[in-house]
């Protein structure tokens, strides 16, 4: 598009004006209001949550309901991808050099994922980060020509993808059933419950991300083998 086109000038100007307006609102929001803020309150109550990392306390305890539904969003995305058709043909098998590198990288990614999952209770880490590493391991396998990115066949993959949300929802419902309320952890069990939920979520997130990378329903094993 030539620069003489009035649109080429008008659109950036308009966007800049909207941006300036929003920044003004943001600035007056930052400086304007006094009063108790949620972040301070959350930090104060981290010790009661069963996790000493504040991010984990918020994600898995204070606002666990949001996280439960975010896992459902991931599942919906995967189901949506599957409903559009089968996965593309697998990549060509990598050469010896890359292949042996993948043989090193993938176990490291899985170990690092396990570490992040465990450390998430006390330090930055947790199910989403660990799941992202597992997903990356799957992507690496897919890129080096492994069919189905190292994932199991469709029947087990479905179980794996739904597992994290299922564990989460069942724990929530059980706690309601015993009279505590949906997703209300008893303080003594909070740490164990959070770890159980995070383990399930890690597996599901990893499997979902890797399966999403394949871009369609997994092919039957026999057809996919080269």
């Amino acid at each position: 598009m030539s620069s003489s086109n009035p649109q080429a000038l008008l659109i950036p100007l308009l966007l800049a004006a909207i941006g300036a307006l929003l920044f003004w609102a943001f600035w007056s929001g930052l400086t304007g209001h006094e009063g108790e803020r949620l972040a301070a309150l959350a930090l104060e109550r981290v010790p009661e949550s069963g996790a000493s990392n504040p991010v984990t306390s918020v994600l898995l305890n204070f606002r666990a309901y949001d996280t439960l539904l975010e896992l459902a969003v991931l599942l919906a995305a995967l189901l949506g991808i599957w409903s559009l058709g089968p996965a593309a043909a697998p990549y060509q098998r990598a050469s010896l050099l890359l292949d042996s590198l993948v043989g090193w990288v993938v176990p490291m990614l899985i170990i690092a994922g396990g570490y992040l999952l465990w450390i998430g209770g006390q330090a930055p880490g947790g199910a989403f980060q660990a799941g992202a590493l597992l997903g990356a391991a799957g992507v690496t396998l897919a890129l080096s020509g492994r069919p189905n990115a190292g994932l199991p066949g469709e029947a087990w993959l479905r179980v794996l993808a739904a597992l994290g949300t299922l564990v989460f929802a069942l724990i929530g419902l059980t706690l309601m059933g015993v009279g505590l309320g949906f997703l209300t952890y008893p303080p003594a069990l909070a740490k164990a419950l959070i770890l159980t939920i995070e383990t399930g979520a890690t597996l599901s997130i990893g499997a979902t991300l890797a399966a999403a990378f394949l871009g369609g329903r997994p092919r039957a094993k026999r057809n996919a083998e080269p």
Partner: protein
Amino acid sequence: MLDPLALAVALPLLGALLVTMLPGWSRTLGMLTALATTGVALWLTVTVWSGEGLRSDLGGWGVPLGIGLRADGLAAALVAMANLVALAISINATGYFGAAESSRKFWPLWLLLWTALNGLFLAADLFNLYVMLELLGLSAAALGALTGTREAAEANLRYLLVGLLGSMTYLLGVALLYTAYGVLDLELVAEALTPGPVAWSALALMIGGLLLKSALFPLHFWLPPAHANAPAPVSAALSALVVKAAVYLVLRLWLDLFDGIATLPAAMLLGLLGAGAVLWGSWRALRAERLKLLAAYSTVAQIGYLFLFLPLLTAAPDGDTRERLLTALVLLALTHGFAKAGFFLAAGLVQKSTGHDRIRELGGAAQSLPAATFTIGLAGVALIGLPPSGTFFAKWVLVGQAIALGQWWWALVAMAGTLLAAAYVFRVLARAFNREPTPKCFLTDPRTEIPALLLAALSALAVGLAAQPIAVLLGAGV
């Protein structure tokens, strides 16, 4: 100790997970979930009806730290409608998809959509609403593309992207509010909110994003292709429920959150767009070639009516008038939910048995599919607003209050929309009863027809409205 609020969200979610894991059992498990969820929803509605508003704090932390769910009358009314419609759609889907492969794809996404609907109606937290909007938009777009045709994939990709833009804009507004007030619970933010740049920008961003999702004219461009190309049960859900959820949220924010921030000129603007939607949507429905496209454009028009209420609600003094307007608005939304779902399911049957849904070639459909034709007729009664449908009462209040509040122009829009709705409904019914095509020319003998037409128009449109002057006349000269 069972909590109907949490169950209304958790049960369909649990069902979605089970049918994902056990696709071979999807129909049985799906129907069981549908029945259980509807049961919980009705229990919830009856509880609210008997006078208790429901509120529960998930995780037991209470606001502002935790997330709350709550049901007031407005939420409960929409939950009851949405779940009854969803149950009917589920039963229809067991027949529509049968045991085919598409049934396995349908059930998990459908139950996730149901989860999002209930979650959205019951949410009391601004960020949680965003998560619900994402789940709703994603599962709706995936369901819409289930037919697998190129048009469906294209229309639903556009739907997905528009939906994402809408929810991102909404999120930006939430971020602004959180920056300024540090809380996310709807009631707490509403208490703290004061007029100023933050409130105005948040209003514009959040309502603007949701207008895109509720397909208010002229942002409706994505709706007709997406709704018309989806499988019939999905079209029914998209038109009757998903769009309605976005409108519900606009209303919720307008009345609860931005009460006192939203000014009358802003409401007038939305009313004006609503008027545009009523006229343009009805006109396009009248010109539509296909039954499902007609129904989709009719949705655009019906959404428009809901927005006609906003300037009246904003102008009305608190109390009786406002409550009557709100009742009428909800009545209209509920009636449209039931009517449009029924219309789409019947249209799906017509499409399945005749192989097409071209209105021009519907001749004789009434003879071969009497129940489906009758359904379309009944739904048409509700869409037009003939008595005793809910739309009739709603429009009655709309017209009456528009005149009482000095905003008479909305009454004209409502009447014009009603006439157009009658035209597009009767156009379908006339074809279904195998009538000859209507002649090209409207008038055949102007000199004899125009006087007759004027008399009929006078009787139908003018005399009723002139009741007041006539009463004055009768009182005069006594």
